[in-house]
């Protein structure tokens, strides 16, 4: 029980296609955060991994009803709480 009280954080780049998560923190400079916010990347937003590009990178994500692709070098800095671990916590 003690293991699941705190949600397990991981980074967006580590999620597999089909996995959903909630953005926890964008660990990038403020200007970059603001830039990403235009596309819907903001803490508290649910995000689903859609698919990877044929050569493995970038990866397309479904966020706020739109399909947005990011490179792993960016997704590596987006801290997320996978939805499965959230469910574990509440259940």
């Amino acid at each position, binding site marked *: 029980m003690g293991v699941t009280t705190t949600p397990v954080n991981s980074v967006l780049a580590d999620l597999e296609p089909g996995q959903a998560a909630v953005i926890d923190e964008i660990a990038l400079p403020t200007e970059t955060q603001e830039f990403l*916010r235009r*596309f819907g990347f903001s803490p508290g937003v649910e995000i689903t991994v859609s*698919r990877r590009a*044929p050569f493995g990178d*970038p990866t397309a994500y479904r966020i*706020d009803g739109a399909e947005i692709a990011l490179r792993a070098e960016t997704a590596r800095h987006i801290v997320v709480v996978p939805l499965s671990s959230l469910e574990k916590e509440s259940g």
Partner: protein
Amino acid sequence: MPPSTTTQEVRTSPAELQRVRTVALIGPPNSGKSTLFNRLTGLRQSVGNYPGITVEHRSGSILVQEEQVRVIDLPGVYSLSPFSEDECVAVDVLKGRMAGTPVPDAVLLVLDATNLTRQLALAISVIAFGLPTLVLLNMADLFAKRGGTIDPLKLAQELGAPVALVSATQGTGLETIERFLEQKGDAKEITQFPILNRPSQSRSWASQLERRAGYRPPLPAEWTRRLDALVLHRIWGPLIFIVVVGAVFQSVFGLGQPLSNALQNLLNLFGQKTAVMIAQPFLRSLLLDGIWKGVSSVLIFLPQILLLFLFIGLLEDSGYLARAALISDRTMRSVGLNGKAFIPLLSAYACAVPAIMATRTIENKRDRLATILIAPFMTCSARLPVYTLLISAFIPEHRVIGPLLGSRALAMLSLYVLGFLVAIGTAKILKSSVLKSASIPFVLELPEYRWPTWQSIGLRLLDRGRVFTRQVGTVILVVSLVIWALTYLPLQHGHPPQLEHSAIARIGQFIEPVIQPLGFNWKIGVGLLTSVVAREVIVGTLGTLYATDPSTHSMPLQTALRQDLAFPGAMALLIFFAFAMQCTSTLAVVRRETNSWAWPAIQFVYMSSVAYFAALATNQLLRMWK
């Protein structure tokens, strides 16, 4: 919770507004804003540039109650915080600070109804300008079909602006726009949104607002999902990519070439029929050899240019171009660029000028500059007249791979590859030295797949065709006339001189020592000089030169060239044109985009040096080998 919580201050503007005369159209990229603009204005539109900057200024007019209303199509923006040049333009126009652009007295805000959440921050920052604003939730048809719901009245209440569901592609709901524009502007309430000062909370604010407006987002687009599963498949994806790009090339050459030939025959026939009606020798020479030959030899490439823009338009409007960017990102990254550079670089195959303008979609300034600097290496349509002429004159047609690929097509393809490789090499050098950077992340939106509309494609072709013919009509005509005059002067005993004694021959002979190692004689030299204005000009120049030379007067241009130029020199000329920066329009556009003369100067010197030494090597090696 009453809606007034978001509406802190309501004030009334003092003066009663007159009827709407100028309306600004604003919205994020992929919201269908351009489709709506085309739907509203049709052929009544024009493109220019905002003064001093590079952003395209598109405006048109619509008739409302028999009165013209001017529509200004602002660049697609995600936000009004002035980060990029596009965003600065949008803000300046809305504030009425843009020179030469009338102050809009109303705003049409186009949003994509299918993903509203992230657009609400833009919506309120537009509404907060205080201009009467009509919020258009576009793609209402797709939105409803996929089970999305919203209460437009509630949303209007929350935003303090009228809201209408429309579909620009279907043309539904557009009567609301007319009604909005014909109402003599009442006194307007200016809605203030305190959330605008707290951008970090805008997302949770947007969710709350959506809940109050009864917004239920639609299900993901099933067809787009299925198509992406195929188009972005690990194996099928790259294969489809290659097939699509290959099909574009095949069509441009397989279909464009016969069309060009037909047009050429038509133009020649017209020229000959007209010439016999003119008795005065000076006038006949001026019209036929000066104007007609110069212009028509370039005009015949219009079919190929339009075909290429047709394909780029189809790819872009259907949504495939964004997938192509996603697929090519990995490759583009290896040279320090990103997948978005693929779109401009693909456009550069038609013309570097619009391609360099299209680099605006690249947020990263250094990536953008690098893309601008390498774009002219891509084989643009202006090189096609030169390539086609030289290839059909010097390379005999025979099959290389069955009926699929002939020797001429292979030669053409090699030139494309060569330009591409040098571009990539240049990009790599730039990105690992002066333009090294990695600050702004690469973000690519994959819009839903849509059927391109003929109207949108048609207007784009018209637009590009106009630009091309305007170049033919002005720049090339002027050069053709100057060249003709230089061959006609100085008069000897009241008669035009022999070609060897003309003014142009003297200039050509003067530079001959420099270009002789490349295998070029003075006539080619004259062609190189005049083609600094625009590459295709050399075809017109050579046409004029051979037409005024008695020994080649009656020959077709290809035959005349074969008499005058050896095979190694011809190949060197092809190589020269693959690399040289022979385009005044491109240089002018680079200066504008980089806002300095330094970059176009560096680009010109660099490309000319590469061209000279590559042509020198080609000629010398082929002569040794022969």
